[in-house]
């Protein structure tokens, strides 16, 4: 269920690293917990963040969730499509519902692989 080509955080974000740029989104588990997403608030391109810093919020019909960057770096692109179609986060959280691309300031730390995250999620829902 969770793609093996990326890393996962305990805050239910994923990051797929390609060279020095990582694409970031929330996981299937997170979108399912949130329910129907109606607004996505994303950072400005060019802003820099520390690891675990809040970079935006996702607001659903029933809740609001902060998005934390799993890595330190600079935002190089945001998913503009979410402005008009926030439901992309529900429809394809691992694909078309990605949030931002971030230029990594260093190696990612403390993240899980697909199997590790799956076990983590199993523990959360148990």
């Amino acid at each position, binding site marked *: 269920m969770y793609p093996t080509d990326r890393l996962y955080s305990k805050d239910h974000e994923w990051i797929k690293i390609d060279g020095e740029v990582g694409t970031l989104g929330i996981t299937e588990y997170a979108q399912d917990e949130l*329910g*129907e997403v*109606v*607004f996505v*608030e994303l950072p400005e391109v060019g802003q820099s963040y520390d690891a675990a810093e809040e970079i935006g*919020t996702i*607001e659903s*019909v*029933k809740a*609001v969730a902060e998005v934390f960057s799993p890595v330190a770096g600079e935002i190089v692109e945001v998913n503009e499509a979410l402005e008009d179609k926030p439901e992309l986060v529900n429809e394809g959280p691992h694909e078309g519902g990605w949030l931002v691309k971030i230029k990594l300031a260093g190696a990612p730390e403390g993240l899980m692989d697909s199997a590790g995250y799956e076990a983590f999620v199993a523990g959360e829902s148990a």
Partner: protein
Amino acid sequence: MVEFAGWELPVQYAGVIEEHRAVRGGVGLFDVSHMGELRVAGPGAESFLQRNTPNNVARLATGRAHYSGLMTERGTYVDDLLVYRRGDDEFLLVVNAANRERDLATLEARAGGGEGVRIEDLSDEYSLLAVQGPKASDVVSQLTPAPIGELRYYGFLEAELLGARALISRTGYTGEDGFEIYLSPEHAEQVWEAMLVAGASEGLMPAGLGARDTLRLEAAMALYGHELTEEITPLEANLGWVVKLKKGDFVGRDVLAAQKAEGLERRLAGFEIVERGIAREGHEVVVAGEVVATVTSGVWSPTLEKAIGMTYLPVALAEVGTELEIQVRKRRLAARVVKLPFYRRGE
């Protein structure tokens, strides 16, 4: 599922927005069995209710229900409720689950054991299913021979539904046409299943508390614990139409009459958020840098596709068009007062 007043309640089935749209455009089915039912009966029942609720029970005909309240001496809400008249001396009050015991205690204390009034908690004897939406009549009429299509709004009848007795009223909490069906818990599951089958061709969806909240808020219907509390009067809540000052004395009447004569300090107003974001219950409402109110309910409206909410504003600020700001976590979102209800069927 969420826990509420000892009940496990479904927040959503397929999803709040989808369920909401099914009700607005077709039909939805709700299990609202948590609602409480209190029987008030006896030769003194009418005069007892007349003294304890602000609406005019003497004008309520058998086979009709009306919206009312149980008031404190200060003219504020112990609870809001429906009164069904089943006969000259026979009434059913439908009350909020969280207030059921307090309502019962209040009524029993005021009855004082005399006056020819019996008060009985029948909540465990009734399940309640709500079938709501423009197609509701098509679905319910498949399960009963009773002429439910002829019922007027707030009319009810007692009839056979799928082989068991049921009380069927043309009432609801969504702003659409629809029915509420009171039946015995032993039959509720069977009727639920039959309703899903009967409604399949109309696109019926089971709907949860999430959609119930977005639907009632679009229709600007008050919810106890949010818009209605022991600190709020019906006049402030835009519910002055349930207060019949000319009918004679009732608990809270003096305060309400004075409030009506002197004018209100605050009243319930609707707002929409102009920016991106959702105001929710408890968020502060700011005007000219001052906190003037807090949000009583706030949701994203699937019909209007914007965030809406209600709040009690000083009357000078409650006019349509007033610019507000609402503190939503770290951001202050621009909002404006709009006309209530947010949604009216047929418009």
